[in-house]
Structure formats: C-alpha cells, structure tokens
C-alpha cells in the first residue's frame, strides 16, 4: 500500500510538472496564432512600401517604420558591436584581474538595466544636446542595451577556445595580439556572430528606449539627425488608439516584426545546435 502511495505521488508530481510546461507554452502559441491570423489580413505590398495615411483613409502602410527600424538598429550596431566585441576580447584574454572582473560585473548589471532607463539616457545625452529627437539618439539608447549582451557572449565564446590553440600559435612565433585577432577570434567566430545576431534580435523589438529618442515620423526618414518612425513604436501608437483600422495596422506591423525576430532567433539556434550538438 505504502509503495503504491509513493508511486502515485511520483506520477502526480511528474504530471503537474509536465502540465506547467504545457501551460507555459499556451501564451506563446496564442500570441503567434493571433499575430499571424490578424497580421496576414492587413499585409500586402502597399503595407510594406507605402507611408501611413491619416485615420479614416484606406490604404497606406508602414514602409517608413520598416525603414526606420533598420536605420536605428543599424546605428546601434555600428556603436554597439565593435564596442561589445572588443570589450569581450579584453575580458576573455586579459581580464583575469581585478579590473576585468569589475568590468564583467558592471556589464552584467548594465544588462539588467530597464530599457526605459536607456531611453532616458538617450534623451538626456543626445536629444537634449542636439535639441531634437533623432535616429542617432534611438541608436545610442539601443546600443546601451546591446553592448553588455555582446560583451558577455563574446567573452564566453572566446573562453571556449582551448588554451592549446593559443599555445600552438605562440609556439609558432606569432605575437600574442595577432594570435588573438587572427586565430582565437576566428576560432570563436560562430559564437561571436551568434551573440551579435541574438542581441540584434533583442534590440529590434525594443520600444521603450525609442519613445522619446527616435520618437516617430509619418514620412520617410529625413536623415539620422531627424526623428524616424520605427516598427515597435508605430505598433504601440496604433495599438492604443480606438480605431479598428489602425488596430489592423498594428497587427500587420507585429507580424512583420515577429517574423524578422523569430527568423534571427530560430536561425541562430538551429545553426548553433548543429555546430555544438546541443
């Protein structure tokens, strides 16, 4: 009898744990389903290439928001990727000291910064300085979120390179810095690229840092010192209006954004899975 009771508890707890997984997957499926169904009905060539129209007028699209997202994310990459990767190289190759551990710690804390705070930083640092909302301010705000992620992923992929490879290169008389640049970094290339792509996926969907940095714009981007429209901000703007037509646009924008981000994520994970056999 006692054995049965224990066996039963075991089964019940296993079942409960498994149902936690099932329940946790439901919101994801529901989000993907509703975004796909609602988004598909509003996506067409005009939607992807045209400017938004005022409420009440049919047609129009989010072409400028798609363009703006690429501009802002591009600026963030130009700032964030080199800074993040080189800091990661320092932490992995030279960071085994008090300063390195402190940088590592600060990067971790920065990675936990609420994204809205990065927005305030972009505002105070760039918008106030130049006197206008701008694509640059948005890029800077996003790069604040990007740098710590890229730093840590670079550091970790470099640390996975076996010490024997460094020793072999040095034994051939190749200077340390060349070893790092040409041999260590290229060995860890896969991991570094993965980290970079995941960080791009992460910041592409960020809305909060852009609300008062790149702001928004109903026209095509007029330069990196001017406000630009971005997909996440545009989705937000449309979602909180009372107009069904704009809601449909928000769903369409969400579908475009989610496709971009999921392609990056799933592509990267499949790639790394094959490589490291996880």
């Amino acid at each position: 009898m006692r054995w049965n009771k224990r066996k039963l508890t075991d089964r019940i707890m296993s079942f409960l744990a498994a149902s936690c997984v099932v329940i946790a997957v439901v919101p994801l499926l529901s989000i993907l389903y509703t975004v796909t169904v609602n988004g598909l009905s509003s996506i067409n060539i005009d939607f992807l290439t045209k400017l938004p129209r005022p409420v009440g007028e049919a047609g129009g699209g989010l072409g400028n928001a798609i363009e703006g997202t690429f501009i802002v994310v591009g600026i963030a990459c130009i700032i964030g990727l080199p800074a993040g990767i080189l800091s990661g190289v320092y932490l992995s190759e030279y960071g085994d000291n008090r300063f390195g551990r402190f940088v590592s710690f600060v990067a971790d804390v920065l990675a936990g910064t609420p994204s809205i705070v990065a927005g305030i930083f972009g505002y105070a640092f760039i918008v106030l300085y130049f006197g206008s909302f701008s694509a640059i301010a948005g890029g800077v705000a996003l790069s604040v979120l990007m740098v710590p992620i890229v730093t840590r992923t670079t550091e970790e992929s470099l640390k996975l390179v076996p010490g024997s490879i460094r020793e072999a290169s040095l034994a051939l008389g190749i200077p340390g810095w060349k070893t790092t640049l040409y041999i260590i970094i290229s060995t860890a290339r896969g991991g570094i690229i993965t980290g970079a792509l995941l960080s791009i996926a992460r910041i592409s969907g960020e809305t909060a840092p852009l609300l008062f940095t790149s702001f928004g714009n109903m026209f095509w981007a007029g330069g990196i010192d001017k406000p630009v429209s971005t997909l996440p901000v545009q989705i937000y703007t449309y979602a909180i209006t009372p107009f069904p037509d704009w809601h449909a646009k928000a769903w369409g924008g969400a579908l475009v954004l989610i496709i971009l981000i999921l392609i990056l994520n799933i592509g990267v994970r499949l790639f790394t899975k094959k490589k490291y056999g996880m």
Partner: protein
Amino acid sequence: MDSSKFSFSRIGRSKLSGDLIFEVVVGFFALGIIVLAFLLFRELFVGSSLSRDTFGTGFLATSTWDPVNEVFGALPFIFGTLVSSFLALIIAVPFSIGIAVYLSELAPEKLKYPLSFTIELLAAVPSVIIGLWGIFILAPFIRDYLAPPLSTYLGFLPLFQGPMYGLSMLTGGVILAIMIIPITSSISREVIMTVPTHQREAALALGATGWETTRIAVLPYARSGIFGAVILGFGRAIGETMAVTMVIGNSPRISESLFSPSYTMASVIANEFVEATSNLYISSLVEIGLLLLLISVIINIIARVLVWRLLKVEGGGRV
C-alpha cells in the same frame, strides 16, 4: 574549460610592444563599459536634481501626481510596480520551478532541448507585441473568464472586489508572469542541472522515486540558486515597460482591489515623458527612472551573487 586558464597577461611583455598596444586598445573599450555605466547614473542623477531638491524624500511617500499644479509624488507608481511584480512572482514561481524540474529531471531526453527552446522563445517576442496581444486577447479573457469566478468565490477579500474592465492590476500581473517565466525557469533549470549526479544517485540507491529524488536530493541543493533566479525574474518584472503599460490601465491611484487599474514606474515614464512640459515635471519622471535603475541594480547584484555561486563551479552560466 579549465584549459582556458592560460592568459597573455602572465607572459613577461617587456619585448611585446604590439601586445601592449592591443591590450591597451581592447582595455580602452572595456573601460568604456564602466564609463557608460557611470554616464547612465550621472545623467539620471543630474536630470533628477530639480525634483530631488524640490520634494526631497517626500517624493517617495506622496501619492499626489498633479502635473497642472506641479505637485509630484511617486508613491502610486512605486505601489503599482511592486504589487504587479509580486503578483507576477506569485503566479510565475510555481510554474517556473515545475518547468525547471520537468526539463532537467523528468522529461524524456529527446524532448528536453525542443521544449526548453520553445519556452525560451517567448522571451524573444518583443514586449510591445505581447502588449498588443494583452490588450486584445488577454485582457478580455481575464475580464470574462478569470475575474467573474474570482469575485464569486473570493469576493469577500478586498483584492477581488469592484468592477473589472479588463485593463487592471490583475492583467498587468498576469502579463508580467508570462514574460518572466522564460528567464526564471531557464536559470532555475541551469541551476538544477549543476546539482552533482551523485546526489541523485544516492537518493535513488536508497529507493527513492523520481519525484522523491528531486524533492530530497535536488531541490534543497539548488535552493539558493532558484531563489536567485526568482529575484532575477523580479528584476525583469520591475523594469518591464511596454506590455504592462498597455494593459495595466494607467491610473495613478492606490487601490486594494486587483481589478482596478493601476500605474507602474516604467509606465508613467513611457506615457508622460514626451508630454512633460515643465522642467520639474521632466525632472520628476527622471527621478522615477533613477529609482527604477537603483532598484534593478540592487536586485541584479543580489540575484547574481546567489546564482553565480552555483553556476561558476560548472564553468560559468549564461545569465
């Protein structure tokens, strides 16, 4: 990974001038991270000086938020942030532990990777999209299917009284719970996986069932790490902006009922920063941002200390 203990800094570098230049260059970028963190604090500290000088510590304890008469107090927002985040934890923690236990201990080997990948995929969905889903799917669902039974059976509690319009503290808490489950569960899973196998073998050898092994030998061992994962989830919930802003109702008042709309620190910044016209108004919002940053830094430090202690042994976890 022990083989990576090798470090260039251990080589005498009197003759390696190229190395020195390279180290200085990459070190410069590493220093940049500290400068960035410093600037972040400085901008928020300077930006909030007007508000700090005007209101002092009363800012934290006043519940008036009146842009017209320029009286600002952050209490309703602090209240909204803390309550919605705690609510999220109450919902998310049992699920996260269940998920972590299943994916590390109980699931068939073949399902482990695809399942954890799927759960972590939710973390990749932008919060504005989760918010969009929250407005049109989750909020009506909670209003029509979750709130009525709660007020029928638990209506004697002040928590579940009053009318429910969909956008509420409850909806905000649920959406935060959905958003923190991926991080809390995946870190808990990593922590549980660091529990040495002999712990499990010892329990199994004594005749324990799978669940008993988990309960007796695994969970106690991983307790502090799981606690760290929970705190990290709490940090996420506190800083989360868009999804909550879209479903919590954005009304700066302190109410006992989870059915009434509320407002969080991050939401008020997101909603009002652009509209804020006076310097004092902006400064007050920046001070809320500063508070948010300080809270999240403290939370992150606590969590990382707890999680690190365990993951470090196994060669560093991706936290």
